[in-house]
């Protein structure tokens, strides 16, 4: 493949982060442009139509389907309480009466003479959208939602589980190589977002949930521990809705994977700050990666760049890269050259490659050959 590289994940000290917060269906926005919001400010609200209950009226009354409407006591549009009579039939000169009662509170939406069914819609369910990040409202989509802007440090993970949450960052690891084990988790970690190094163990995750930590940010996890935590195996990488009591963000991948030094150093420099995180990941059909947003305060808000919209230019000699597949998985380095001709890999496939000098190689060692598809660019 020509430009077969994966654009790297963002690790930015400071940039303007914008997040659009929209309702699933139209409703009302509760803030206006220029307003300052906190993470828990409700910015928009609506009501999702309630659940439906279908009552087989004709069947219960033992009548012809097309007579359903005739036997209704109430009509479409009427409001009902649970156990209100909605239809009845009488027989033997009124001696025997059969009633059909509403199983729920709601509104009669439809009476069908074709199916003999009555549709009752339960009361609407309120839905609220919170700001998620503190900042300023910069755009209002009437009836739909808002865009909030804040200068922040911004880090993308590679994979996560669990939804949006907030908490203060706490470094539990001393170095990117350290594993996050259960003995390192303490009761006073409640409400915190814990930063580990290369791996979080299954026991540690369970303990983090138990003490009430809000999130864990770490280089890697063994898949078997993730399966054990979730109670099931993830098939396709669409996550964010898991209800396991914690949000987990992996910055590197699966297995023991030292967190990139840059990510680790940035998180360490922001220890104690309030962070908004989301584990939502979607690798297909609209890539969503987990994110860590740490709003900047006071003097930190200097030279804040724009959140980049344009993908990086591509590979060139000198480009800083990370290898994302065996046999050099996780290694950092720089591109030395980009041979034009396809080269034969150990697999015997002819692939487009690059030559790179890895940080783990001794000085003077020959550059290694890696398929271009197996590196990601580290933005500098």
């Amino acid at each position, binding site marked *: 493949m020509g430009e*077969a590289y994966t654009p790297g994940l963002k690790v930015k000290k400071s940039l303007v982060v914008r997040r659009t917060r929209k309702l699933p269906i139209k409703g009302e926005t509760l803030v206006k442009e220029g307003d300052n919001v906190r993470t828990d400010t409700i910015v928009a609200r609506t009501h999702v139509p309630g659940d439906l209950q279908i009552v087989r009226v004709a069947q219960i009354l033992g009548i012809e389907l097309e007579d359903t409407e005739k036997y209704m006591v109430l009509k479409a549009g009427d409001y009902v309480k649970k156990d209100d009579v909605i239809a009845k039939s009488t027989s033997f000169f009124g001696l025997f009466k059969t009633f059909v009662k509403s199983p729920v509170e709601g509104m009669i939406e439809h009476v069908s003479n074709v199916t003999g069914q009555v549709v009752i819609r339960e009361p609407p369910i309120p839905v609220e959208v919170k700001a998620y990040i503190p900042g300023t409202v910069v755009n209002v989509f009437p009836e739909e939602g808002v865009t909030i802007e804040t200068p922040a440090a911004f880090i993308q993970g590679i994979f996560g589980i669990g939804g949006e949450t907030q908490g203060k960052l706490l470094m539990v690891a001393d170095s990117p190589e350290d594993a996050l084990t259960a003995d390192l988790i303490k009761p006073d970690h409640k409400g915190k977002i814990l930063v580990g190094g290369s791996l979080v163990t299954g026991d540690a995750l369970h303990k983090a949930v138990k003490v009430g930590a809000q999130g864990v940010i770490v280089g890697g996890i063994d898949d078997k521990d993730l399966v054990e935590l979730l109670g099931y195996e993830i*098939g396709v990488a669409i996550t964010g809705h898991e209800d396991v009591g914690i949000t987990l963000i992996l910055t590197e991948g699966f297995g023991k994977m030292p967190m990139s030094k840059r990510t680790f150093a940035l998180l360490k420099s922001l220890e104690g700050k309030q962070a908004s995180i989301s584990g939502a990941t979607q690798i*297909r059909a609209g*890539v969503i990666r987990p994110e860590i947003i740490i709003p900047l305060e006071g003097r930190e808000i200097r030279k804040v760049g724009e959140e980049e919209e344009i993908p990086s230019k591509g590979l060139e000699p000198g480009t800083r890269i990370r290898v994302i597949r065996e046999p050099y998985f996780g290694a950092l380095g720089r591109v030395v050259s980009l041979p034009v001709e396809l080269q034969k890999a150990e697999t015997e496939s002819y692939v487009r490659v690059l030559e790179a000098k890895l940080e783990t190689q001794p000085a003077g060692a020959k550059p290694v050959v890696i398929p271009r598809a197996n590196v990601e660019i580290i933005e500098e």
Partner: protein
Amino acid sequence: MGRKNSDKKPMFDPESIKVILATDAGSTTSKARFFKKLGNEYRFVASGEAPTTVEAPFEDVTMGIRNAIREVEELTGHTLLTEEGIITPTQGEKKGVDLYVTTSSAGGGLQMMVAGVVRTMTAESAERAALGAGAIVMDVMAIDDGRRIHQKIQRIRYLRPDMILVAGGTDGGTISHVVEVSELIKSAEPKPRLGVSFQLPIVYAGNKDAREYIKDTLGEKFALRTVDNIRPVLEVENALPAREAVHELFMEHVMSHAPGYSKLMKWTDVPIMPTPAAEGTMFRTIAETYNMNVIGVGLGGATTNVYSIFGGKFVRTVSANLGMSYSICNVLKEAGIANILRWVPFEIEEADLRNRLRNKMIRPTTIPQTLHELMVEHAVAREALRLAFEHHKQLARGLRGVQRKRTIADIFEQTMGEETHIKMMELNFLGGTGGLLSHAPRRAQSALMLIDGFQPEGVTKLAQDSVFMMPHLGVLSTVHPKAAMEIFEKDCLVRLGTCIAPVGEGKLGETAVKIRAKTSDGEITEDVPFGTIKTIPLKEKEIVNVKIEPHGGLDVGAGGGHSYAASVEGGVVGIIVDARGRPLVLPKDSKERSKKLIDWFRALNAYPQETLARIQKTL
């Protein structure tokens, strides 16, 4: 908004077409294939590939397609692109094309929900029709599917399909059930996956007497299209009108909302085809041209598509979420780790294998660099093929609910109308396409993956797509069949050889089958012991008459222990005598199993011998 191109009829003189460009926007990779008329025939000239760009941060499918085409430009020196798109018609020898066609499965392909009245009858017919149109079926809803009404409504709300196909009832029959289905859909108000502002398309292919009621129920809120009943009577399945309507609505409503497709639609006068629809067209052509029973498979990054043509009956299934990149962990989930591990010849910790597959899932565009990594992917591929074929067999079966006359033989055989009509012993041709199979470094690797995944029985020809161009040729065949067939024969179809596989169980080490044949190089006599594989070289397009003598109760087509004479075609791998038995059972002991795998790989020269020797030393 893209102009509607579903009803475009390209007007051109086929003889005037000299230069053709075809692309496929796959879920992971966009592929460009460049064809030219050289002398009197059309030939494949060059290919280019680039990552698909439907997703963020690019969100424009044409970027990936441009990158793939640019690679063709670099390789050929032929200018194909301008800022506006593809240059048509040609301008001199080295600029532009006469015809541009494309297929697409990017952004999740066509995702549909289907509904019917009875799960095993109209709902199943609707499912087959949607799959036949190349769709991924997200859910099949029926009155009797065991779910409660509110559960169905929740499900409809949760899914965000591109389209819904509603069937139900025979013409003249009761209408209440199918109207009930439509009321359910109306109440749930499903929203389309792409573009919240447009109406979700619904195809109604049920009882014609219910059309007015369906219109009243669904006409206002949805883009409703009514077509002939899919089951006008119980004994007949009429899927074509529903399938065509799905294709039209796919272009008008779905494609035009996917990122960049409005631009892509302007580049071509030929309707964009879903990749599985185009792939299936080519397998169907093989069956028709050579009058054979055919099974074809497209093993992709996100989905695996299986096509079967038995006795002229065509069935297509698209197994969503069985694939080699985005969906690799769903193969892990569905097959189980033990089933993947059983195909890996070297020792690997279960935890390590799991982590490797997860890492491929989160970085789906990476490729194996080492042989061990390649072998792991091939292990997953075998399971993806096996699972997709199982799925296919469930749908490739006779119409249910039909009263059948039974003979005494039927009673003894315990056959039901519900059995699959796929009989592996009657299969003549097994072919594979898709990135992993087409790009396997050695053809013997794809031959063995096809054999292990499908377990053909008796005598079966094996073939594969050379550089993955079957979808391209499929869409091309809709407007220029001559060019498509010429390229298919000369440059696309790689004849791997013929597989001879006795059915049954034998004693390990004892002769399972004896092969006798006369070839241009001399006489062949081979005794193949049970539990082994043997390859006999036979060149591509060379055909020999072979006498196959199975031992014991083994069967190669003429019944247990009976000799069978067959005309066998050669290929780049040759004749593969697979005497491992059917069903294929792998040793339970992991070391034993590894040794067997290595023996089999060696027999086909599937991987470098020195690597296999190295692995064997570690066992």
